[in-house]
């Protein structure tokens, strides 16, 4: 017999096997999830969840698909959090501090409480990446925020009303498009393809009998 623990889903008590994630425990209890469940693998941020262990004061947050149940867990899912997402034309923004001031001025109202960092389900230094964004240091903001799954938990805790994941998204796109080094071999290859450099070679492969294709495939030289 599996070991069971008692958890409270939206306040209601259920007894569930201890080795389940919160997400699986909800399904075990009989919920059919529509919201709050996407990749089931820690990437999409659909399953933001807050909980408190009975008897403790600390409010914790996590991804339901990545976190095991514990005895006495009071669980509430946060399948949607109203973030502010400003729209912009990436082709028209300039990689300067002014972009942040214009689109997300509230980041300058950060009070430095660090609640965002404490709440982050990915253990990111959220307050720090907001500080980088304030300074227009998009490269550092992008780096620091890279693992963000945009679950929105940090924003739910922020007294300044900042939508951290959207700020970071903007920084990463600016970094990717404008600040990261240009890739010459990529541009060259696209040119070559457009110029028809490989057309004949590919045409030949399109016609080759399967047996010859097998020959080619089984005798490839493989880059070390």
């Amino acid at each position, binding site marked *: 017999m599996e070991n069971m623990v008692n958890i409270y889903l939206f306040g209601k008590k259920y007894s569930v096997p*201890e*080795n389940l994630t919160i997400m699986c425990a909800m399904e075990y209890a009989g919920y059919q*999830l*529509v*919201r709050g*469940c*996407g*990749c*089931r*693998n820690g*990437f*999409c941020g*659909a399953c933001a969840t807050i909980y408190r262990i009975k008897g403790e004061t600390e409010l914790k947050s996590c991804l339901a698909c990545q976190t*095991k149940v514990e005895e006495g867990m009071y669980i509430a899912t946060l399948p949607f959090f109203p973030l502010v*997402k400003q*729209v*912009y*034309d*990436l082709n028209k923004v300039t990689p300067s501090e002014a972009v942040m001031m214009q689109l997300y001025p509230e980041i300058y109202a950060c009070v430095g409480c660090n609640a965002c960092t404490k709440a982050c389900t990915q253990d990111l230094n959220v307050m720090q990446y907001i500080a980088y964004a304030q300074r227009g240091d998009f490269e550092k903001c*992008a780096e620091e925020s*890279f*693992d963000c*799954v*945009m679950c929105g938990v940090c924003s739910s805790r922020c007294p300044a009303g900042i939508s951290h994941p959207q700020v970071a*998204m903007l920084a*990463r*796109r*600016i*970094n*990717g*498009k404008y600040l*990261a*080094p*240009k*890739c*010459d*071999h*990529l*541009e060259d*290859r*696209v040119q070559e*393809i457009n110029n028809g450099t*490989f057309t004949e*070679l*590919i045409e030949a*492969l*399109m016609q080759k009998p*399967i047996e010859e*294709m*097998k020959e*080619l*495939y*089984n005798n*490839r*030289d*493989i*880059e070390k």
Partner: protein
Amino acid sequence: MYSKKFQKSLAAVEAAREANIALEPRRMTAQEKTDLLAAYHPDYKQDEFETLVIGPNKGDKVPKELAATLQAHSRITPESVDLSTPDYDVDVLVIGAGGAGTSAAIEAHEAGANVMIVTKLRMGDANTMMAEGGIQAADKPNDSPAIHFVDAFGGGHFAAKRELLQRLVCEAPEAIQWLSELGVEFDKTEDGTMVTTHGGGTSRKRMHAAKDYSGAEIMRTLRDEVLNRNIPVVDFTSAIELILDENGNAAGAVLMNMETKELLVAKAKTVIIATGGAGRMHYQGFPTSNHYGATADGLVLGYRAGANFFTQKLFSTILPEPLIPSRSSARWLPKRYVLSAQSL
């Protein structure tokens, strides 16, 4: 933190680590590969397949679980929908907001079309979000689309449709460029050279990654771009039937709100099906890494509207092949994902 059972398994891995490190894996011979596949791979276990008795692929064999859904009754009756007053009327209806669907929507919008997206969960709750490994394109000087062609054709056991493969290998570099210009942060060295690695069975290092978040980085960027363009996204809503016009061309879809079960009608000049894979059908009881919504919906939608499968062998639950460098709808994507109005 870990359970006892897990700790035990962890200890076993640790105990075997030295031996594992010392082991030099060699490439399998063609025969060894064939034998292994025949014994274990779900695509090759014949008794797990069933012959279709109705529809355009009548007589073909498909996984049993898929046969059951393809040949099932519709979940709605004609009386339950009113086609005369559509809730949406657009040029392009994109079904599914993964990498393929969002890319198609962005390109359609760029071309000036009035486009909308309908998607089962949230935009980006999709397999694309989970493709950690990377995306392949032959853009290095020691590589070429022709070498990529041979690798992928062999990797797919010589079953691929060559016209599609040609597109894939020739357009992959441009797709990487397109994504870079949207701000996707591919791994590069300081001089801008792409950091590339081997993918399963490749002869050149052509897998581009964005740390171990490749698909997530692509997906969140595409999602941001869709939002920037104000393309309407109807989320938590599934397409459940295609609507055909009097000539048999796709003219829209019946949609269902996943939460309220309300039925809606979308009318469209072009319909793009980009509903992704089938992992969550758990063919042959196989576990899957697929996202929650990967239940072959597009195959069923298309089949019921009369579309032919291009091959019934493509229902692999194990998917080591390259991320489809998806851009504009039918021009970029294999038929398996996109059935444009013309092909229906």
